[in-house]
C-alpha cells in the first residue's frame, strides 16, 4: 500500500514491478466556422434536427464538395501555434465505411498528406515542471451526423445537422507518460485553440473531444500493444479512463494474457473501459484521394499573412507577465490559461501595480465569481474598475481591508470603487493628528495593557493597532498607526 502511495503519476504497480504508461492523444476540435467544411450549411448547434443540412451534406446524387477557405485558415493558424510544419500542398482522401449517419458513405479526411505536419508544445505540470509533447500531424476532416436510438422502440432516427461540420484532428506523438500529463496536454491545446479562435474548446458541447491511445510497458522496454479509448469529452474522464485502462492492461499482462489491439469506450458510470470493436472487426476504410477535390495548395506568402494575424500565445505571454509585471510563475500560468483572463488582467494592470492586480484578480475576483457562480465574462467588476481599486490601495486612499469591503460592494452594485469610497466616506485617514487622537484614547483606556507592553509583552502592539483601527472604522492608515503607536508607547 505504501508503495502505491509513493508511485509517481503514470506508474502502475503490478506484482512484477512498476509499469509505465505510454499515451498518445487524438484531439478532435470543431472549427469555429459559421458554415461547414464542404458546404454552405450552417455549422451552429442547437437548431432543430435536420435543419442545417444542405444537399451536399445529405449526399444527394451529383452533389459536390467545395472547400471552405476559412476552415483552411484556421488549420494553418493552429499549425503555426503548435510550432508545426505547414504543408503547402495537402490532399483530401475519402475514408469509406457504411453507417446510417454518414450520408456519403465516406468521410472526407486527410490521410497520407495532411495540411499540418510535425510540431511540439510545452505543457505545465501540477508540480511546476514543464515537459514537451510532440505533435505528429493535424488534418482537416468532416464530422458525421448523429444517430438517435432512443426516440422509437424499433427505429433509429438520424440528425444530419452535424454532418460535414469541420473538424481538425490533432494527433500527438506517444510522448505522454501519465494521465495528468494527458490532462495538461488537452488543457494546453484547448487554451491555444481558444487564443487563436480556431475552436471554442467547449468540451461539454463536444466541440473538443479526444481519443486516447494507451499502452503499458516496463521502463526502457519497447512499446506495448495499445488500445484506443474513443470519444472522451472531459479532462476528468480522460484522466480516469487512461488510469483505469492502464491498470486493466497491467492486470491482463501479469495474469499471463496478451493485450488485444482494439477500440474501447469509457463507461462514465463504472469508471472503466469496455471493448467496442476488435482489430479484426476494424473497418477497411479503403482510403483514396477524393477525386471531387483538387489537392489543397497555398503559397508561403499566404501562410506568412496568416502568421501575422496570430495573437500572442500563452507561452510568450506568460514570460512577459513574469518579466514585465513582476508576478510569480504560478500566477502567470493561471492568468494565461484563458485568453479572457489575460486580456482582463492586462487591462486591469495597466498603469497600476501588476503584482497586486494579479493577487486581487486570482484571489478576490476568481473567488467571488466562483462563490456567486458567475461566468468570468459576466463579471460585474470590469478590468478598468479593478485597476481603479488597485490604484486606490497603492495610493493609500483606502487600506487593503477597506478595499475588500469596497470590492464586495462592487460585485453587487457594479459601481466604481471611487464612487463607493466617496459615498461611504471610506478614505483612509493618514493625518498624524487625527490618528494621535485615537491613539491617545486607546492608551488612556487600556493602561494595564500599556504596563504589560512596556514590561516586555511586545506582542500587545497588535492589540493596540487593532483597537485604533476599530476606532477609526478601518479607515486609519495601518502603517501610520503602527509607526505612531510605537512612538507613543516608548
Amino acid at each position: 500500500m505504501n508503495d502505491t502511495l509513493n508511485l509517481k503519476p503514470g506508474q502502475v504497480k503490478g506484482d512484477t514491478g512498476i509499469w509505465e504508461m505510454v499515451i498518445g492523444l487524438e484531439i478532435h476540435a470543431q472549427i469555429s466556422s459559421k458554415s461547414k467544411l464542404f458546404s454552405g450549411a450552417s455549422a451552429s448547434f442547437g437548431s432543430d434536427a435536420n435543419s442545417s443540412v444542405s444537399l451536399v451534406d445529405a449526399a444527394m446524387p451529383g452533389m459536390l464538395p467545395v472547400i471552405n477557405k476559412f476552415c483552411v485558415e484556421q488549420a494553418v493558424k493552429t499549425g503555426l501555434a503548435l510550432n508545426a510544419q505547414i504543408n503547402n500542398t495537402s490532399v483530401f482522401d475519402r475514408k469509406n465505411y457504411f453507417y446510417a449517419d454518414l450520408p456519403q458513405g465516406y468521410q472526407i479526411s486527410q490521410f497520407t498528406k495532411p495540411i499540418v505536419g510535425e510540431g511540439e508544445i510545452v505543457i505545465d505540470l501540477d508540480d511546476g515542471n514543464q515537459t514537451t509533447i510532440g505533435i505528429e500531424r493535424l488534418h482537416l476532416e468532416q464530422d458525421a451526423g448523429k444517430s438517435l436510438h432512443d426516440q422509437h422502440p424499433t427505429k433509429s432516427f438520424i440528425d444530419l445537422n452535424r454532418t460535414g461540420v469541420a473538424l481538425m484532428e490533432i494527433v500527438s506523438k506517444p510522448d505522454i507518460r501519465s494521465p495528468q500529463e494527458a490532462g495538461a496536454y488537452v488543457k494546453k491545446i484547448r487554451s491555444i485553440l481558444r487564443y487563436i479562435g480556431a475552436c471554442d474548446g467547449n468540451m461539454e458541447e463536444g466541440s473538443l473531444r479526444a481519443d486516447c491511445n494507451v499502452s503499458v510497458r516496463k521502463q526502457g522496454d519497447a512499446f506495448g500493444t495499445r488500445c484506443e479509448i474513443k470519444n472522451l469529452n472531459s479532462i476528468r474522464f480522460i484522466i480516469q479512463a487512461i488510469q483505469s485502462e492502464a491498470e486493466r492492461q497491467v492486470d491482463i499482462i501479469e495474469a499471463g494474457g496478451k493485450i488485444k489491439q482494439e477500440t474501447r469506450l469509457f463507461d462514465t458510470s463504472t469508471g472503466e473501459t469496455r471493448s467496442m470493436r476488435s482489430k479484426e472487426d476494424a473497418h477497411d476504410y479503403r482510403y483514396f484521394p477524393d477525386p471531387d477535390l483538387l489537392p489543397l495548395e497555398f503559397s508561403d506568402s499566404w501562410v506568412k499573412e496568416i502568421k501575422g494575424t496570430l495573437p500572442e500565445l500563452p507561452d510568450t505571454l506568460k514570460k512577459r507577465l513574469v518579466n514585465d509585471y513582476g508576478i510569480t510563475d504560478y500566477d502567470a500560468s493561471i492568468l494565461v490559461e484563458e485568453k479572457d483572463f489575460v486580456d482582463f488582467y492586462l487591462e486591469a494592470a495597466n498603469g497600476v501595480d501588476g503584482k497586486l492586480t494579479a493577487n486581487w484578480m486570482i484571489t478576490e475576483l476568481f473567488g467571488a465569481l466562483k462563490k456567486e457562480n458567475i461566468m468570468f465574462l459576466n463579471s460585474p467588476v470590469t478590468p478598468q474598475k479593478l485597476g481603479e481599486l488597485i490604484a486606490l490601495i497603492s495610493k493609500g486612499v483606502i487600506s487593503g481591508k477597506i478595499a475588500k469591503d469596497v470590492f464586495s460592494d462592487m460585485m453587487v452594485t457594479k459601481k466604481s470603487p471611487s464612487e463607493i469610497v466617496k459615498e461611504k466616506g471610506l478614505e483612509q485617514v493618514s493625518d498624524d493628528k487625527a490618528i494621535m487622537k485615537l491613539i491617545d484614547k486607546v492608551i488612556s483606556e487600556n493602561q494595564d495593557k500599556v504596563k504589560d507592553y512596556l514590561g516586555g509583552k511586545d506582542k500587545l502592539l497588535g492589540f493596540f493597532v487593532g483597537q485604533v483601527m476599530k476606532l477609526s472604522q478601518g479607515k486609519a492608515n495601518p502603517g501610520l498607526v503602527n509607526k505612531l503607536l510605537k512612538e507613543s508607547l516608548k
Partner: protein
Amino acid sequence: MSDLLNLDLSSAQKSLKNREISSVELTKAYLDAIEKTSSLGAYIDLQKDYALEMAKNSDKKINQGVAGPLEGIPIGVKDMFCTKDIKTTASSKILENFYPTYESTVTQNLWNDGAVMLGKLSCDEFAMGSSNETAAKGNVINPWSKTIPMSPGGSSGGSAAAVASRSALAATGTDTGGSIRQPAAFCGITGLKPTYGRCSRWGIVAFSSSLDQAGPLTRTVSDAAIMLNSMAGYDNKDSTSANLEMPDLTSYLDKSIKGKKIGIPKEYTQDGISEDIVSFYETSIQFLKDSGAEIIPVSLPHTKYALPVYYIIAPAEASSNLARYDGVRYGTRKEAESLDDMYELTRGEGFGDEVQRRIMIGTYVLSSGYYDAYYLKAQKVRRLIKEDFDNTFENVDFLLTPSTPSTAFELGQKQDPLTMYLNDIFTVPASLAGLPGISIPVGLDKAGLPVGIQLIANSFDEPNLISVAHTLEKSANFNVIAQGAAK
C-alpha cells in the same frame, strides 16, 4: 411534319429566329416523332406538357426579341442529369422514384439559353455499360437495326438513339470512358466529349468523378458546337471545373486546317478491328490530307494499358460514389431487421449485375493489401498515358483514330463483360488523359451500319477540334438517315 424533322439544330435555330417556324410546331413534331419511335425505348420519361409549355414560352421570347442561343430547340436529357422535380433515375432501380429538388448546372445552362426539354433518355445503369443493356428499364434499340435488334451503344444509348431516330434535335450525354463517342459512332451521329473540367459535374449523378464529363450528341459538328457553347462554363460548385473562357465554337467551324498536323497513332490499328473500319479510317486520313493537313505517324506506347487502368480507376471511384445509395435518405429501401441487412437487401435488389460487379471490383482494388498493386499502380500508369499524349501533342495538333473497334453489335450478343469492355478500347485513353474527343460518322459498313471516326485534341482545344471535325464531316458527307428514324 417531315420538313421540320429535316432541320438540323443550326437550321432550326435560324428558322426559329426568322419566325419561319415556331417552337411549339417544332416541339410538337418531335413529340410525334417520339411516339412513332417509341418502340426503340430511347425515352424513359416523356415530358410532353412541360415541353409544350417551354416551347410556348420560347415563342414568346422570340417574339419579344429576347431569345437565347438555343431558344425553342427541343432536346432530350440523359437520365444521369438531375432535373428539378422531374424523375431522375440514372436508369437504376435504386433511384426509381427519385425526384431531385435541384437542376444540374449543365441542364440549367441549356434551359437558361432557351432549350426545350422533351424528356429523360435511357442509359446504362449509372452510365456503366457499352450497350445500354444494363438499364433497369431494358434495352434501347439502335434505329439502324434492320431485322435483328442492334445495340445503340452505351452508356448514352438513349441519347444517341433519340438523335439518330430524329426524336430529339440534340441530346445531352455523359462520357466516362467513351459513353458519348461510342454510342454516337454506333448510331451514325456526332458525339463530343469535352476536356475534363469544361462542363460542370454539379448535379450529374456521379459514376467516376475523375473521368465523368458531360457533352452533346447531335446530328452535325455545327450542332455540337452550338450545344457545347451553352453547356460549358466555369461553376464554383464543382472544384474540378476549369475557370477558362471558351470562345464561341461556331466561329471555328469554317476555319481552314491547312498546315495542321494530324497524328496517326500506330497503337490504334493493331487489334482485330473490322476491315470496314480500317478502310474508312484510311479514307478519313486521305480526306484530311486533301484538306491540307499534314499526316504524321505517332506512337503512344502506353495505350495498351489504358483499358485495364480504366477498369481499375473507374470502378474504384464508383464503389465510393455509389455508397450513398444506401436506402437511408432517398431512393429505394428494402426494410429489414438490422441496418446491415437493410443495406444488403436495398443494394442487392436496387443495383443491377454490372453495377454490382463494378462496385465489387472497385472495393477490391481499394482494399488494404491490394491498393498498391491495383489502384496506386493504375494511377501511375494513368500518368504515363497522359504523358504519352503530352509528348505527342508537342508535335501534332490532333490525333485521328477509329471511334470503336467494330460497328454496332446485336443486343444480347456480348454476354462476357470482358468482351464488352473491349468496346471502349479507342475511347478510354483520351478519357484517362482528360482530353477532348469527338466521334463523327463517315460512312456505312457492309452491313449498313454507321462507322465513326474519332478526333482527339489537346486539353481545352475544343475550338480547333471543331474546325478539324467539321472539315472531315464535310469531306465524308455522311447524309444517310437511319431507317428506324421518324419520317
